[in-house]
């Protein structure tokens, strides 16, 4: 048993950390958010560094030793408050390409992603934060050798920057049924695609996506026709593990930052850190973070194993990390007082992101239900 990074992961960690320390902080992020060209340039640099490749196994053209390598990248992204769509493009989109395509088609689709030339977004489900794919916003009808897709989804995460949309459309059955959902790779510039861009509260980009009779060829189907739900579930499990890592990066930053603030902030003639109630609060933040970190690591290491065990551990991790993240973020803000709610400090931005992570890919009620449904005797 080993919960530590291996040598390659350690190198990856150091590289990402150096890069982000140099290229990314709150001030630089504000500038990036206003400058699409600069965001695109940063994305290319990240690809040149090999970050996209860290999400793909060697047989798919990347260099990941295991799916846990993305943990390293996402953990550092969480620490540095990165809003670049690695999660949607490399982790989730990438997983769908790996599992949903084969042969040359797969390499043709993955190559540009690893090279940083193409971004992806998953348009699945309805109005929830990518929980599952059986509630569909789109319908697709067979049309000769291809398909015609129509529908509207109000919030597609990274829909604003994606070059390719992975659209979950109903091809048979009724909304809510597992069978009958098919995934399509749709060019975002295709005839009939319209998008309106905006940002989420955590500054990640998104778009409303409307498809009006968009024609796609049969070669653009990902995975089996009518069998897209399981594929999305797998990809979202990778997404959960990734945001768990991201949350750990944020939490492990917030604790020392809060401790430092309370050591330097003087009220009533003493540093805040001298008040025992605040010491205990920070100790609780630590306790929450440690239990969450254990589960985030377990989640990462469960990705490539048995499917049922993967789902159980992913759900257990999501519940723990979401709860801990909300607590740690809330207390970090509380102990920073007014400064905690100011946009000038990164503390509040981390708190916002931790709350969004709570909602992403199934909230706690969703994952508790899924964990319960897969329950096994504890000893097993």
């Amino acid at each position, binding site marked *: 048993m080993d919960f530590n990074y291996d040598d390659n992961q350690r190198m990856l960690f150091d590289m990402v950390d150096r890069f982000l320390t140099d290229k990314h902080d709150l001030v630089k992020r504000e500038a990036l958010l206003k400058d699409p060209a600069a965001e695109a340039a940063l994305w290319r640099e990240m690809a040149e560094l090999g970050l996209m490749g860290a999400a793909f196994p060697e047989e798919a053209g990347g260099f990941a030793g295991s799916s846990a390598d993305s943990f390293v990248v996402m953990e550092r992204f969480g620490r540095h408050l990165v809003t670049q769509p690695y999660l949607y493009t490399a982790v989730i989109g990438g997983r769908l390409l790996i599992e949903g395509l084969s042969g040359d088609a797969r390499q043709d689709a993955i190559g540009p992603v690893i090279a940083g030339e193409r971004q992806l977004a998953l348009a699945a*489900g*309805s*109005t*929830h*934060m*990518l929980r599952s794919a059986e*509630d569909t916003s789109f319908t697709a009808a067979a049309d000769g050798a291809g398909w015609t897709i129509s529908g509207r989804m*109000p*919030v597609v*995460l990274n829909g604003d920057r994606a070059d390719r949309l992975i659209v979950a459309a109903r091809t048979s059955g009724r*909304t*809510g049924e597992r069978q009958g959902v098919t995934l399509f790779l749709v060019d975002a510039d295709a005839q009939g695609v319209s998008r*309106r*861009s*905006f*940002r*989420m*509260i*955590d*500054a990640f980009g*998104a778009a*409303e996506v409307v498809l009006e009779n968009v024609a796609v060829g049969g070669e653009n189907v990902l995975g089996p026709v009518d069998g897209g739900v399981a594929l999305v579930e797998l990809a979202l499990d990778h997404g959960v593990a990734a945001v768990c890592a991201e949350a750990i990066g944020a939490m492990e930053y917030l604790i020392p930052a809060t401790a430092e603030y309370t050591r330097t902030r*003087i*009220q*009533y003639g003493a540093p805040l850190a001298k*008040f025992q*109630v*605040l010491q205990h609060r920070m100790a609780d933040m630590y306790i929450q973070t440690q239990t969450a970190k254990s589960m985030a690591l377990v989640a990462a290491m469960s990705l490539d194993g048995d499917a049922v065990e993967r789902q159980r551990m992913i759900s257990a991790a999501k519940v723990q990390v979401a709860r801990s993240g909300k607590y740690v973020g*809330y207390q970090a*803000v*509380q102990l920073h*007082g*007014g400064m*905690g*709610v*100011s*946009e*000038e400090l990164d503390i*509040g*931005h981390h*708190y*916002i992101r931790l*709350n*969004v992570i*709570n*909602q992403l890919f199934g*909230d*706690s*009620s969703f994952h*508790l*239900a899924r964990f319960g449904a897969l329950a096994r005797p504890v000893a097993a």
Partner: protein
Amino acid sequence: MDLSIDDKVQALRQEIRAFFAKNLPPEFARKTLAGDKLTKEEHKQWHALLREKGWHVPLWPKEHGGPGWGPMERFIWEEESGMAGAPRLNHVSQDLLGPVLIEFGTPEQKAELLPRILSSEDWWCQGFSEPQAGSDLANLQMRAVRDGDDYIVTGTKLWTSYAHVANKIFCLVRTSTDGPKQAGISFLLIDMEQPGVTVSPIYTLGGMLSVNEVQIDEVRVPVTNLVGREGGAWDITKFLLGNERLMGAWIGVNMAFARQVRERLEQVGPDGRKRSENAVLAQRVAEVETDLVALRYTTYRVLADELSGKAPGPEVSVIKVRGGEIMQNLTELLMEMAEAEGMVHPLTMPHDGLPVVAFELEHMAQQFFDKRKLTIYGGSSEIQRNIIARRLLNV
């Protein structure tokens, strides 16, 4: 023991409801209830409508143009305003400074300043907190040095609500460094529309602008702008904070949030099922609803004590802590139930053509993150617990 509220007060509640139903512009209520902000002009419009009815300064006695309400009537007003989504923008002038001037102001100050509040000509903001004086308010450093018939004032106020729409500020200033910290603090009225006063916005989570930094650099303020005696601000401050002591419960506003939460729970979610079928969610909603009922009756209990002549004491801290926590929980539920649509950044939404998400959902995330301040400002929850421990438990 008796839970009933007397008929006269009940009649007033009905009268307030009927007035709102007839006069409150639906667009104002809609904006307020959806977490959006009204403009200053919109607020003035609402102020004018209330003025016709004589309800524009609900805390003031009749002789100064108020309705002359007692604590119960004022509380019912708060509840009904909150529930109806009535805007409440110039609260600092009407509810905080007005009563202070009536109690402590000179005849000249009253004659000059009260009419300007009544007419909504003056918008005051409150300069209390400073960079080094947050929880520890008595540590404030803004200094006022006597020079002939003036004070010369220099210093920085922080987290000043609505300074960006105000034309005047009342400040706690240090007029002496001798003796106990509290004894050297004075209450001074300062015109903001003059050189030396600089207002800089502070954006808070979700891009909200409601607080500011106010810098005052060698500004001359006539001694006649002093309220009360020099060094006498601490008692005035206690009086002022006392006037909003039951405000921290936010009963009416919380009830409006709870109504929205319940409505959304009973709606059909994106999966085609009623949200209330989600047992975890239904239980969370019921839990915060029971929290709110308990808070409401705790507030009534303090109010009843007050009506029977007992001075409200530190038990008000219970109300402040719970009021903030409950509003955080309610706005969290509203945001989470709106799922992805409740997580958008309202300042970035396209408004060409049909809305991307419904107006009622656009501000849910911003609203939730904005409410984070409730357990920090006006004496943080930690400070409130210190008060309870020290003054009620003698520990």
